[in-house]
């Protein structure tokens, strides 16, 4: 019973030894007086037992009466421990001093880490934080962390955020630098070009100069909005032919704007009045073989195709054991016989089929967000009566402007 032992330890107990043949009488007397005795053991004429401090005081007169010699063997428990501590004062003072010292030392900052510097010089930040009071040896409780971090942000222009986190004796000053925007330079200039062929229906320029106007047909790659601005003063240009001056009058921008155009997508379809079709007859010839490495061992059939028209179904099974693949495969072959069926179509049926085919082809090219304006079917003339050819045209209006960076010399 560890819990009981803990209780006894807290209250303190004495192990005593009793010499004398009448120790039974002493025990009986003791329990009648309410003295609690534990762990009574006897070796020859000596009995050992444990008794609490109050019980021991009561036991003394009884021992005298029964003429037993009571001797203290061991004192254990917190009351005796405390007594011993009061005797050794220097030791206690040292322990208390140690605890206080530990507490004091842990309430100072001993290390300052600066995290997050990339462009900013970390020495500059550490210099600044030292100036603001965040330095080794500073008293933790007196630091106004919010004020220091605010001050760091204000003093260093390239820092957008600073935060201080104290863990133990280590202060961690984390800073976040400002992300610099892209500097305007030659890289930023651009044209807007056509991403596909089309007929311009609408053009809106935000910056730059329009090179095309509504109604123009453009091809893919053509410049729609130019990023080069030319001052258009014909009279000045006549007077002054200096090329250097001309270049100064040119300025560059990143052109922005939207260009809408009609775009066509075409698909074609062909069909004949006489349609050839293969249909399975239901007959088949199957064979299977075991493949070991490159060699094949037929277990059924010979793998030859007996039919003129056929479709081959092949299924293979790889023998594996757990993750280990054996180099052995079982392959089943099945040739299904097909029959060529010629079918006469009416003109309308053949046309429908061709249109469907063409429509599908045109739709495939259509971008997802294009706005369809018109769909047209055009039947093409063919010399052969049996052959019908159609063209399917889908007309859409979509944005064709695409930004293209301009490469400038010098």
């Amino acid at each position, binding site marked *: 019973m560890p819990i009981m032992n803990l209780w006894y330890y807290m209250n303190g107990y004495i192990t005593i030894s009793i010499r004398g043949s009448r120790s*039974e009488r002493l*025990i*009986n007397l003791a*329990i*009648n007086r*309410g003295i*609690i*005795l*534990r*762990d*009574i*053991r*006897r*070796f020859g004429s000596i*009995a050992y*037992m444990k008794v609490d401090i109050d019980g021991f005081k009561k036991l003394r007169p009884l021992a005298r009466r029964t003429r037993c010699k009571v001797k203290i063997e061991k004192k254990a428990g917190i009351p005796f421990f405390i007594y011993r501590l009061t005797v050794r004062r220097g030791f206690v003072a040292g322990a208390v001093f140690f605890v206080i010292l530990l507490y004091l030392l842990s309430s100072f900052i001993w290390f300052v880490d600066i995290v997050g510097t990339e462009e900013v010089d970390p020495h500059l930040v550490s210099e600044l934080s030292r100036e603001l009071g965040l330095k080794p040896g500073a008293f933790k409780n007196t630091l106004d962390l919010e004020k220091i971090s605010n001050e760091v942000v204000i003093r260093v222009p390239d820092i957008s955020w600073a935060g201080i986190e104290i863990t133990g004796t280590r202060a961690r000053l984390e800073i976040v630098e400002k992300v610099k925007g892209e500097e305007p330079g030659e890289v930023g200039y651009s044209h807007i070009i056509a991403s596909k062929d089309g007929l311009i229906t609408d053009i809106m320029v935000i910056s730059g100069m329009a090179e095309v106007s509504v109604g123009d047909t453009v091809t893919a790659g053509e410049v729609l909005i130019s990023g080069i601005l030319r001052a258009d003063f014909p009279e000045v240009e006549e007077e002054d032919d200096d090329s250097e001056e001309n270049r100064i009058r040119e300025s560059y921008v990143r052109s922005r704007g939207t260009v809408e155009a009609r775009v066509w997508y075409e698909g074609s379809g062909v069909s004949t009045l006489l349609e050839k079709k293969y249909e399975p007859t239901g007959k088949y010839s199957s064979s299977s073989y075991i493949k070991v490495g490159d060699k094949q061992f037929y277990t059924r059939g010979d793998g030859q195709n007996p039919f003129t028209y056929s479709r081959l179904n092949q299924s293979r099974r790889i023998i594996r054991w757990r993750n280990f693949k054996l180099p052995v495969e079982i392959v089943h072959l099945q040739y299904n016989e097909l029959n060529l069926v010629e079918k006469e179509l009416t003109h309308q049926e053949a046309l429908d089929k061709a249109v469907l085919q063409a429509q599908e082809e045109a739709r495939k090219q259509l971008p997802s967000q294009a706005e369809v304006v018109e769909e047209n079917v055009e039947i093409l003339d063919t010399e052969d009566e049996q052959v019908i050819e159609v063209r399917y045209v889908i007309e859409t209006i979509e944005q064709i402007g695409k930004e293209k960076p301009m490469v400038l010399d010098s």
Partner: protein
Amino acid sequence: MSFKKKFRSSLADVFELPKEILLDLPRVTLVGNVQMYIQNHKGVVEYTDKVIRISISGGELVIQGEGLTIKNIYSEEIFVDGLIYHLEYAV
């Protein structure tokens, strides 16, 4: 047995009352042969690590064994620890 005890014994039988209370008998609990718990004893007569004799109403309870220890002793209860070989009521 006196008339009083006979009366009490029959009373305990009729009303199914615990006999250790009405007849002042000890209640002995044994855990295997390693632990013993005696309630309602009258004191220790003799004890060594081989023999413990406990006074009970109307006689003695003799415990024989090896390494016997009185773990706890109160005015009504005794806990005995150790290997118990032999238990005898000496009336």
